[in-house]
């Protein structure tokens, strides 16, 4: 009997949209030299999700709203530290240290205090194969918001990283765009965490931009290549995971790493 491959459209939509979101954000992260911060944001997203689980159980507030509020608050602390004169890498290191420590405490508390319908491991590994149509709707909403904050203003976002002074002299309010980038990263990491997981976020917010920057000869090409690599990596990783029975998040990460290594070999 011939083997039939089954791909649920929900899986394709969620992984596809998440890939496009990170494919758009990752080149901006590279251009703005935010790799360290972007790498730290999945940690804050995970902590935000765990704190939201606690808040949902104790206060009854909607999980999605709580997690977003916590995420924005946590990310704002990094911005506040930097504005007080702390070096960005130091602020991020402090932030990561605090986030992972509080994550361990929160995780232990949740596992011992609350009956969980969803395993907290899904936030780490991601369960795109278990997404519901509600998750798809939420993913569409998060992706649309991030696209609105980033896509029309790509030139500003990128050029602020290249020459912030010139952008200010051109009449652009750079702090507003800083807030938009940070908010987009926070929304993308916490909003998509339950669908694709911490592992995919860590990989996809960093590797597409790094790989694209090594291949492209223009900023425009870097963004387009980043989008293409992210989408190709996400969907091919999903397909491979379905065929092999391996965790989608891990396979997607390996595919993205393979793209990067191929780009290095091609130099």
């Amino acid at each position, binding site marked *: 009997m011939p083997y039939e491959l089954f791909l649920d459209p929900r899986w394709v939509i969620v992984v596809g949209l998440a890939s496009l979101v990170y494919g758009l954000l990752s080149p901006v992260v590279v251009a703005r030299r935010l790799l360290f911060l972007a790498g730290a944001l999945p940690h804050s997203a995970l902590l935000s999700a765990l704190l939201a689980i606690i808040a949902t159980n104790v206060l009854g507030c909607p999980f999605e709203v709580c997690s977003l509020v916590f995420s924005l608050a946590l990310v704002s602390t990094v911005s506040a530290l930097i504005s007080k004169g702390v070096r960005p890498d130091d602020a991020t290191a402090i932030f990561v240290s605090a986030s992972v420590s509080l994550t361990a405490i929160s995780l232990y508390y949740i596992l011992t205090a609350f009956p969980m319908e969803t395993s907290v491991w899904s936030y780490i590994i991601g369960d795109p194969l278990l997404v519901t149509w509600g998750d798809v709707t939420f993913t569409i909403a998060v992706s649309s918001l991030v696209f609105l904050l980033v896509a029309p203003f790509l030139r500003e976002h990128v050029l602020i990283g290249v020459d912030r002074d010139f952008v200010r002299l051109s009449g652009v309010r750079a702090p507003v765009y800083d807030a938009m980038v940070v908010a987009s990263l926070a929304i993308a990491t916490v909003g998509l965490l339950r669908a694709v997981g911490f592992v995919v976020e860590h990989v996809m917010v960093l590797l597409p931009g790094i790989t694209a*920057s090594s291949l492209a000869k223009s900023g425009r090409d870097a963004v387009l290549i980043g989008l293409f690599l992210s989408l190709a990596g996400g969907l091919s990783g999903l397909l491979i995971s379905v065929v092999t029975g391996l965790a989608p998040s891990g396979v997607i990460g390996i595919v993205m790493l393979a793209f990067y290594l191929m780009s290095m070999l091609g130099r």
Partner: protein
Amino acid sequence: MFRGESFELEGPGLVVVIGPNGSGKTTLFRAILGLIPAEGRVSMNGVDVTGKPEEAGKQAGYVPQFKGEDLSFPVNVREIVESAIALRRRPPRLAFPKEERNRIDEILRRMGLSEIQGKPLSELSGGQRQRVFIARALVWDPPILIMDEPLTAVDPMGRADLVGMIKEMARDKLVLVSSHDPSLFMDGARTLRVVNRGIVAMGPPEDVMREELLSKVYGRSVFLVERCVHVVDGYAV
């Protein structure tokens, strides 16, 4: 750093700002452009631009000092020059109109950048990179040009070309240039300003380039050789 200073500059002409590292050359330029907070008042062509970089940017073109920043993101020459136009237009930005494309092409041609307009900044030499930022500053043909250490990371031949270009631009613009090596601009400069956490001296080069004055600023880096004053600076070598 600059307290109680007041001065007026009129163009066209070349004004050279010299001083050792940490003396405030960049701070002075950034304060003039409104990029850092400053007390007092700055006006350009009668327009108050104090603390307003967007207003200063309409009056003056700025060529920043290259400090060896990470250029791993591959923005290319044309994109940098185009940004001078694109950033002043709000989204949605569709293709550049023909008139603007022609202006960009002309600037690239004048600065000798047409052949390399598709190259990322990271693949350019120091001199080529400076030409790109000069081209960007000239897109709107501003009456004032402020250039912070434009000769940094440029080889000697490139420096000679750039200095010639800067002196040419100073024929019809007010050009403010900071430099570690004042000797390159001496025969074109109208005014020399010496700073060391304040304005130490200002005037025609022949009045300012005196050993006793420069020694106060540069210490033992000043030499008198055959009645000519030289400032030996590690960055200039």
